[in-house]
């Protein structure tokens, strides 16, 4: 396991409230630092604010108060295009439901973020996409549509897509929630390998305490607050 190093994402006294009339507080006064090379599990009961915390970390949501810093840069004053750019370059998402684009092949799904970033030519994107799929045990499967793959395979394609632009942080929301035990183990092994071999940070929201126990650090959220 590589040593935790520089802070990648930092939440400072972040609160998120929704609703105009009757306000609901999703997360309350939270301080979190995610560092490179650490595997963090976020646990807690349903509706506790785990996913909300993840969305705040991933700049998908904007805090009602407090500050979010990505690689030392405050995201508070950034517009949506700049936030989208940070997501594209720095962050990778994996959701419970694979959320692949159904009309596109596995390879096209994986290369989509690369094409949006536009740093590689077609051949290089294809090569990298195929290499990512192969590294996740999907060699020769790139031509398949998501509908032609198993749940575990789809989730691995989603992980490959999250890794497309070599993000520094992978944010995974219940990535094994819809998988059988064998596929869940595969996903967890991939995450472990990514952290250990590439020094990326992984934040994984999960209900499964056994899986969470295999992370480097656990954050337990109850009623929108961090209790551990």
């Amino acid at each position, binding site marked *: 396991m590589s040593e935790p190093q520089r802070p990648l994402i930092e939440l400072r006294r972040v609160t998120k409230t929704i609703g105009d009339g009757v306000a609901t507080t999703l997360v309350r006064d939270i301080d979190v630092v995610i560092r490179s090379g650490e595997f963090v599990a976020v646990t807690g009961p349903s509706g506790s604010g785990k*996913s909300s915390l993840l*969305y705040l970390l*991933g700049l*998908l*949501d904007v805090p009602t108060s407090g500050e979010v810093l990505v690689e030392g840069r405050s995201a508070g004053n950034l517009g*949506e*295009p700049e936030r*989208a*750019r*940070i*997501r*594209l*370059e720095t*962050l990778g*998402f994996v*959701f*419970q*439901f694979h*959320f692949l*684009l*159904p*009309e*596109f092949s596995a390879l096209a799904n994986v290369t*989509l*973020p690369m*094409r*949006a*970033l536009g740093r590689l030519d077609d051949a290089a994107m294809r090569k990298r996409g195929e290499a990512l799929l192969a590294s996740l045990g999907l060699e020769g499967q790139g031509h398949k549509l998501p509908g032609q793959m198993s749940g575990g395979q789809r989730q691995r394609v989603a992980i490959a*897509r999250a890794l497309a*632009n070599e993000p520094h942080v992978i944010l995974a*929301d*219940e990535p094994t929630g819809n998988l059988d035990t064998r596929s869940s183990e595969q996903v967890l092994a991939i995450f472990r390998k990514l952290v250990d071999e590439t020094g990326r940070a992984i934040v994984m929201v999960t209900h499964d305490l056994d899986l969470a126990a295999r992370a480097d650090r656990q954050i337990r959220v109850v009623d929108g607050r961090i209790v551990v």
Partner: protein
Amino acid sequence: MRLVLDIALTHVISRVRQTLVGMLGVAMGVGFSVMMAALMEGSQRDFVTQLVDSLPHITVSDERRSPPRQPAEDAYAAVEFSGLRTPVTRAGIKNPYAIIASIESWLDGAVAPSVASRAVIRFAGRDTAANVTGIDPRREAAVSKLPTQIRQGTLDSLYKSSNAIILGDKLAARIGARVGNTITLASGTGQVLTCTVVALLHTGVSQSDETQAFTLIKTAQILAGQTALVNAIRVRVRDILEAREIAARIEAQTGYKSVSWQEANEDLLSAFQIRNFVMYTVVGAILLVASFGTYNIISTITHEKTRDIAIMKSLGLAEGTVRSIFFVEAIVIGLAGTVLGWVLGFLLCLALGTIEFKSPFVDATRLPMYYTPVHYLLAASVALVASGIAGYLPARKAASAHPVEIIRGAS
């Protein structure tokens, strides 16, 4: 942009039925618009062509728009005249051949003198009124299509016998006269002439064919009882759209009333303007209705693709990029529909052009279709703008959706 195009095309291609419905909606709109515009403008141009061909482009008559100034007005500052006696004979155009020579010196076209009079034609106990026009056959060929409208005989046969006459074919049929028959003409001034029918005329315009007769100028002058009378100068110009300006110049030069074909048919041309306005309104409405189909389809696609939109935004695709995807889809549907509509419109025009159209006023003819790229470009422009707006509205709404809300909903 390639990414946007790829995703848009994939969405469009993967929804074959919806895309086809949208394309067909636009295609029908464009096709029927093109057909309608071709039909309306074709009929208008055909009508104007017939109108222009059947009449001289400019007619200079022996009338004046306002009475000439009397010497008494200059000498005594008179404000009113009374007891003036209306002349019994027509004034005619003074020095007509000098005027013709003067006009010919600058005109890009042809000029011919004529004598217009009315007479009653009598044959085999039947009487009918006719407009008898005295012409110079050699000059007439340059100012009208009369030589090509002669059905039996020739225009030059007017020279072959004394008091020769050419009758409109329907006029001849009405009195039962044929080529070679001798008919009697009686004018309002009491002149009676015996004439030989030397040819029949068919213009295709019923009103002309039922009332028109042509003689030599000399014969018409005898009929009018005024030798040397020329009461009309007929002018044909190379560019018919310049007829109004040329008529004004002739009138300014000669003082005689010069009426262009546009002035003579002012009411009709105004009616055409109203008709064109109505046509373009209807065409616009057709395309607007078609654009509702596009709106519906893009709305449906964006609704179905809500989750994908959230995913693309969470991956880091900017709002503008997502909006562009659905906008491009609408434009792709609009473009494909437009091309299909062009083909449909062209085929409809060809099909309509084969239909025979019968009118009580003109000869049976095919429906006149006018082919011009302008109709196609106009329909395409309206269709694409309508498709663009129809796509932009749902695209804007979809792109502004908050990904978190959608992801939560999907979970």
